[in-house]
């Protein structure tokens, strides 16, 4: 525990690094808005923790690790003890490295890579990780034993991670798992769609990111994949709701968060604050919100002593937007509930609707390391 009561203590310097420009700027924006809302909530609108000021600096990583490292070094050089943020897994890895080298606290943002969990003692995460996505997908087929699951993914760290996740989660429960990995730069998905049909699976899990999703879904639809087996994928941010076109109604979605998913009081609080700020609740709003809560907790209990902050966070269980969340002590995994969702067509196009909340323990990753 900490003993920070000094109203006269120097403000705690906190560095927020995330994409304000670059390819993932939209995610960065949601994260930022969520963080502001979370900070307001956790400090009761004061922006201070028990009288201790927080000196928050925002920096743009441009989606570029070089920039991020430079910014991080600059912040650390100026005495920053807490870093948080970034959507990009590659940047999160670099920042985790900096945190360890310089013995400061780092709370990564929406970056989903499993590798960040347990990477070192200084690094925490405020979002979900790939494993939790995959495990949620697994909840769609009931008992996986003896079923055939095909993972359709891009051949990237993200896609490979998803395949590995499915193999671990569903394969471990007796499912036969097959991967159809497509080169990231491929633009033609029709033959692969046909390959999916030919495989005669019981479940198809799609892990896709980026602009080519539209063409991919069209190809699946054209080749009749939806008639062959149920298809599960992760529901992304608001901008992607319309990307599935005619396929939308046929897809089962796993989801980390969408506006209205949780139905908790804290969610209300967040949405109110977001709307006041002119933002909408989105996939990564909660990551920002949780990051703010974790920082406030760390400062409240640990002042500006990094080891004390780490102690304050390890094993901490708290109420947040998605309900009860735990920072697992062993590897800093963030144990949290997930959602099953479907898209329904309304006046403004397709919008998500909750099917079921998946229990945090059901999708908890095994301890890393």
């Amino acid at each position, binding site marked *: 525990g900490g003993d920070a009561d000094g109203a006269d203590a120097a403000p705690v310097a906190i560095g927020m690094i995330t994409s304000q420009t670059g390819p993932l700027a939209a995610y960065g924006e949601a994260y930022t808005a969520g963080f502001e809302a979370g900070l307001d909530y956790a400090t009761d609108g004061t922006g201070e923790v028990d009288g201790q000021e927080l000196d928050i600096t925002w920096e743009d990583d441009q989606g570029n690790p070089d920039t991020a490292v430079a910014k991080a070094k600059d912040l650390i050089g100026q005495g920053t003890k807490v870093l948080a943020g970034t959507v990009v897994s590659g940047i999160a890895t670099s920042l985790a490295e900096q945190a360890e080298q310089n013995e400061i606290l780092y709370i990564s943002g929406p970056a989903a890579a499993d590798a960040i969990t347990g990477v070192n003692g200084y690094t925490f995460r405020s979002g979900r990780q790939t494993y939790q996505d995959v495990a949620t997908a697994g909840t769609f087929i009931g008992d996986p034993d003896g079923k055939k699951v095909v993972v359709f993914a891009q*051949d990237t760290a993200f896609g490979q991670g998803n395949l590995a996740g499915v193999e671990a989660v569903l394969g471990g429960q007796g499912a036969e798992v097959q991967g159809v990995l497509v*080169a990231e730069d491929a*633009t*033609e998905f029709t*033959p692969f769609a046909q390959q999916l049909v030919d495989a005669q699976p019981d479940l198809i899990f799609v892990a896709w990111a980026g*602009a*080519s999703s539209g063409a991919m879904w069209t*190809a699946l639809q*054209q080749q009749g994949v939806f008639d062959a087996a149920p298809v599960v994928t992760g529901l992304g941010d608001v901008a992607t709701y*319309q990307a599935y076109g005619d396929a939308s109604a046929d897809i089962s979605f796993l989801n980390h968060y969408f506006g209205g998913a949780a139905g908790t009081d804290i969610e209300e609080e967040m949405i109110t604050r977001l709307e006041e700020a002119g933002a909408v609740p989105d996939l990564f709003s909660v990551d920002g919100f949780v990051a703010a809560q974790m920082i406030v907790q760390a400062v409240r209990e640990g002042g500006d002593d990094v080891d004390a902050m780490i102690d304050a966070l390890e094993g901490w269980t708290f109420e947040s937007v998605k309900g009860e969340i735990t920072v697992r002590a062993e590897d800093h995994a963030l144990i949290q509930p997930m959602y099953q969702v479907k898209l329904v067509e309304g006046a403004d196009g397709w919008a998500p609707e909750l099917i079921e909340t998946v229990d945090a323990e059901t999708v908890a990753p095994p301890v890393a390391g």
Partner: protein
Amino acid sequence: MDTLILLVVTGLGLGALYFLVASGLSLIYGLMGVLNFAHGAFLTIAAFLGWEAGRRISDGTWTGLAISALVGILVGATVAVLTEVLIIRRLYERHIEQALVTVGISLAAVALFEGIWGTDPIYTDRPAWLTQTTDLLGARIPNDRFLLIACAVLVLGGIVLFLKRTRYGLIIRAGVENRHMVTALGIDVRRSFTLVFAIGGAAAGLGGVLASVYYGYVSAHLGSVLLIFAFIVTVIGGLGSLTGAAIASVLVAVLQQFANFYLGGTGDLVVVVLLAAVLLIRPRGLMGKAA
């Protein structure tokens, strides 16, 4: 069997797209003697404005698509002409600088498009028929591939006729080699150059609109993705050779499909290896003329 057909026909469709981009590139290379890195930007702006126009007037219909295509062609041509007149022309006969300037334009243009239209892809609507499939020997071929192939054939035929049947073909080839001497034969070479730039830009514009049909979206990076392959196709086909580019487009795209499907997604690697191999065996490309 149906997989084979699917791979070949979709490969042809993709090849058609490559060719639509490469045709303008090849033409402008034949004219400027440099690779035009701004070609991707011509394509992207045409796709954006074509989409803006199409959706305002009649979204998701054939009329809308026709309007998009028309606007795209006009925009592509206009932007190309502006680039030529305002920038390229000032650097005439300085090929490296010309190429460099187009690098600058492409960097600036992508950033500008991101500023205007954002970084996320904008998903587009198209006529229903294009999203459906046609059964061909057991393979369900997406219909838009047929549209692409038809357009590519038309463009190839049109440009070849233009170069063969008009004097411009001669003027351009001669002008690349020795601009001064062409003017000394009493020919206003600048006007021919601008015209050809316009044609190249128009082809890129059409390519842009069709690319947005193929991918189902428009984005600031639409052009950059295609440009790399258009370069490769242009070089494999032989710099400045239009038929070479057409053959290489098909070769590259079909090979890419097969490698992606059967060789563990190595399509891009295989294409790169093909490029290196072709250049090492035939430095001038498949149909290139002697330097």
